[in-house]
């Protein structure tokens, strides 16, 4: 089998010098580059709710619109009706799609039988009439959105080589109703599927995802004192993982899922510890006479970024785990907190104080190339967290009691509001890829 696989690979490589192999692509590194004109046709519906015909393309189109990589051809311009026959040999009328400007066409065929949903989705290069990607999905009807997100990820991957982040989620904290407490919430990266995770009317803070996206670590005051818990996102099962010390806040998991890093105070002095998620004694990772908080593990797990005020004000430092010595990477004398390591490991975003306001900045792990990513003339921007593809950041925007979660592209060019209307929303954490 391995030999056969290698053979297939070589065969492809040997084909590659062939001069006639046009490939549609999008260069995601070209700011303001041309967008791909794409048509998402109404899907064919077998047995099932006829509104899916428009509903599925709507989900897909909304996803693609978020990337700023596509120009969506409006459905009113479409001239061909997609039917089940297009999935059993009947060719699409590609000249017709090209005529309305589409370079790519997405079609789908869905059927719902009882509690079983099946969808086939295909992506065509309209200029060549070739199939670029095709998937057949089965699941429960309530998995429809997640299925469509998956195919949206396929489309982005096909054109960019980078997996999309549709279907990923953001955990955050907010006050629930008139309660003074804070609960954990989760919302889809598209702003849909908002749900409350905890409901104990105490303070539930600092949600952090495990690398497999199955667990959230967070601090809860539900017993009266702050302790750190692990919560299984699917089942709701919980386990207490950090009980020693006074104040405590999880910072992040090691990529292998073995360790949870946290800042823990003892006798008024917070240091960085790590504990095995299966239990056991805590190890001190970084300490000093100042406050050490907010550890963010690097994607390779070898280093952490963290905050220390040993120099008189809170600043971001990087250190190799298990090796003495730390390097300050934030500059200026102000205030730099809440570091978040990019998935590629090449940037660290953090909250900086600039001109009396808080802004989002980012810097290379060696302290070079610092730049401002997000700021607001009328408020504060805090608590950045990278998307799993590294192309976006979610952060908190605050203005005199109003707060919202916003998403901005890493280059600072595009921005949208993810969540507003919940009291004191903050501490967003973007889930790993799905």
């Amino acid at each position, binding site marked *: *089998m391995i030999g*056969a*696989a290698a053979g*297939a*690979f070589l065969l*492809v490589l040997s*084909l*590659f010098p*062939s001069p006639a192999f*046009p*490939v549609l*692509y999008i*260069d995601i590194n070209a700011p303001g*580059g*041309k967008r791909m*004109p794409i048509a998402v046709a109404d899907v064919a519906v077998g047995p099932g709710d006829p509104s899916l015909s428009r509903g599925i393309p709507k989900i897909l189109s909304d996803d693609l619109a978020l990337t700023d990589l596509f120009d969506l051809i409006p459905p009113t311009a479409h001239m061909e009706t997609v039917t089940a026959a297009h999935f059993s040999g009947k060719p699409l009328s590609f000249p017709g799609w090209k005529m309305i400007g589409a*370079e790519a066409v997405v079609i789908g065929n869905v059927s719902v039988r009882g509690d079983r949903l099946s969808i086939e989705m*295909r992506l065509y290069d309209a*200029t060549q009439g*070739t*199939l670029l*990607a*095709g*998937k057949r999905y*089965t*699941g429960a009807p309530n998995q429809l959105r*997640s299925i469509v997100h*998956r195919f949206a990820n396929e489309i982005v991957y096909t054109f960019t080589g980078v997996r999309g982040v549709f279907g990923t989620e953001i955990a955050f904290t907010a006050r629930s109703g008139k309660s003074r*407490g*804070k609960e954990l919430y989760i919302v889809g990266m598209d702003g849909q599927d908002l749900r409350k995770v905890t409901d104990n009317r*105490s*303070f539930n*803070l*600092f949600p952090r995802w495990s690398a497999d996206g*199955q667990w959230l670590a967070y601090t*809860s005051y*539900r*017993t*009266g004192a*702050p302790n750190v818990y*692990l919560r*299984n996102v699917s089942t*709701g099962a*919980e*386990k207490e993982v950090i009980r020693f010390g006074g*104040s405590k806040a999880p*910072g992040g998991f090691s990529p292998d899922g073995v360790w949870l890093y946290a800042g823990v105070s003892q006798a*008024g002095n*917070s240091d960085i510890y790590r504990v095995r*998620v*299966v239990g056991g004694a805590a190890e001190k990772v970084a300490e000093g006479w100042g406050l050490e*908080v*907010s550890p963010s593990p690097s994607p390779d797990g070898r280093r952490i970024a963290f905050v220390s*005020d040993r120099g008189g004000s809170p600043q971001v430092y990087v250190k190799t785990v298990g090796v003495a010595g730390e390097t300050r990477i934030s500059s200026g004398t102000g*205030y730099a*907190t*809440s570091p978040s390591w990019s998935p590629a490991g090449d940037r660290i975003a953090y909250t900086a104080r600039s001109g009396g306001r*808080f802004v989002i900045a980012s810097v290379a792990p060696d302290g070079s190339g610092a730049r401002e990513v997000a700021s607001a003339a009328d408020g504060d921007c805090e*608590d950045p967290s990278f998307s799993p593809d590294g192309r976006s950041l979610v952060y908190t925007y605050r203005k005199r009691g109003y707060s919202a979660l916003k998403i901005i592209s890493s280059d600072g060019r595009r921005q949208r509001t993810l969540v507003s209307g919940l009291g004191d929303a903050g*501490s967003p954490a973007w889930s790993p890829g799905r």
Partner: protein
Amino acid sequence: MKGTISWKWAVLVLSVAALVAVGCAKKQTVKSEGAPGAPGAAVTPAPPAVGEAPVMEAPPAPVAVAPATPPAAAPGVAVTEEKMSQFDDVRFDFDKSEVKEDGRKTCQVVADYLKKNPMAKFLIEGHCDERGTSEYNMALGDRRATAVMNYLVSLGVPKAALSTVSFGKEKPLDPGHDEGAWEKNRRAHFVLK
């Protein structure tokens, strides 16, 4: 840019195609969807195949962490309410935890009370104003509460009579968003247990 040939991307797409082909090698039924006569249509292994990707949720992963404790049932409402105190709050400067002159006077009052009421115990809450990130403020609140505790101990109060908790910026006394409110919210608060 559109429709142009890019060998870099061609390599990428073809490599991915090859990988997909490798992944599907066992069960693949290659259905050629290439336009008739398109170069390589007959041998291009990957794109034509409509793959099957079940999206059923993976069974709850066999993660090393066993769900040990059920979610606590007792609501933590009491934690979120401001507890009345007969003693003034000890106030702090921005990003500071030094006990200032008027705070020391308050601590002396508390210490005197404890001398007259040796059975009494105090919880000292540390609080911060809303500026800055929650995690840093959580640790700062802890340092403020501890600073007050240490000062009381220096006045002769037995440590056993005192405990601390930080609420960071989560529990402001004044919900306002100006220096007047912030000044009131940077505090240590005494709660008689």
